[in-house]
């Protein structure tokens, strides 16, 4: 906005966001035969939920393989090494939040 004699100049304190959002991965239509990663954020209730979901998946979804990963801390991002391992060894990753 240009400042004129009749309009005061004002400033936006927010700054720009130059970081680009990541696009979500394409959804699979079926888990049959898929290698599934379970990513546990290490919180108690999330772990309970994920372990029960894992049992149900193994019982009924005809998945190929399942691997279980636990973050070092629920409030920190997964390490790049863990993310790389998940990407390398799995087709699908399932995670949850539970406080």
């Amino acid at each position, binding site marked *: *906005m*240009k400042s004129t004699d*009749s*309009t*005061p*100049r*004002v*400033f*936006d*304190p*927010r*700054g*720009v*966001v*130059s*970081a680009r959002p990541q696009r979500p991965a394409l959804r699979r239509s079926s888990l049959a035969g898929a290698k599934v990663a379970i990513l546990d954020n*290490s919180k*108690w209730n999330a*772990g309970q939920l994920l372990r029960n979901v894992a049992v149900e998946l193994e019982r009924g979804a005809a998945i190929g393989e399942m691997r279980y990963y636990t973050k*070092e*801390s*629920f*409030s*920190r*991002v997964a390490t790049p090494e863990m993310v790389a391992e998940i990407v390398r060894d799995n087709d699908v990753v399932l995670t949850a939040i539970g*406080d």
Partner: protein
Amino acid sequence: MSVGQVEDQTPAPGAETDLVEWYFDQGWTDGLPVVPPTAEKVQAVLDALGVAAHEHICRVAPRHGDLSAEILAINLVMAGARPEYAPLLRTAIEALCDPAFNLNGVQATTHMAAPLMVVNGPVRHEIGMNAGHNVFGSGNRANATLGRAIRLILLNVGGAQPGELDKSTLGHPGKYTYCIAENEEESPLAPFHVSKGFAGDTSTVFVMAAEPPHSVTNHVADDAEGILASIASAMATYAHNNAVSSGHCAVVVGPEHASTIAGDGWDRGRVQSHLWENARVRFGDIAFDHRYGKVYNRNLPAWYGRELESRNPIVPSPDHVHVFVAGGSAGRFSAFIPGWGHMSTPVLRALDGSRSPTGDDCLDESCRVEDRS
């Protein structure tokens, strides 16, 4: 148009517009009136920083907004701070943006943590900070507006609007301002930053994700062990986040208490060790004696005892207890400040970019205040 100038789509103020109300209408405040920035005021801050308006400082999580020198200057002016505070504000923000601090988590957590900022060195006097009476309270422009400028940046650039990206259940009053200076002049201990290896004439900023201060009263004891028993009592509860999430905590010792402690020949290291050893929590208390199943934080240090009668420290080592001396010369009070937990590591950063020679984990001109035990 400069980076910080408002885009055309923002409703324009007119000649008669009350700019304080206009900034409220944009949602660009902490709930208090802001000082409307002017080009002259913003330029004065840039001059104090000695950098160009577009210089990039850091990205502020969780919005990951780009903090340029000009955006820092705008927020500093809005907070009511003076241009000469700018280098200290910049250093504090750089410390908060150190990956070890995990600002993303601190900003978004349901816990009440807010960044606590403790300043050491000559800059305290240069900008007139309060390290004495009512040090956590109102009345000093530098303490008040530096902390407020941090909050405005965390809100405006970091996007931590309550209920949106800031999910804190309760918050705490330190989310308006939480900025103190150590009372080096009335402290019988070495200044905090000197204990970390910095020169006394170096100015530093320490930041820690923190709960509010809890007062510790002891008007009776005339020896170090008596004073520290009261502080340890405040630390040894199982309600604060250290008890259940470990991490770091701070103790602010009032000058009278500090005088008694030092009079017995105790130094900071012995105070840290004594508090760490004596402020313990029964494991059965944080596990509710397994009344709800074996429910407890799996991130507690692996070496903590898991037997119900095990008594564990609230933080993993004496070096996780950060001891400062601050407050007025009269009164036998201290304060315990719990941290957020293992999820955030405090950062100590020098204004001149110098590094601690002690071997602390220093990277990119910041020193992560890890345990060295």
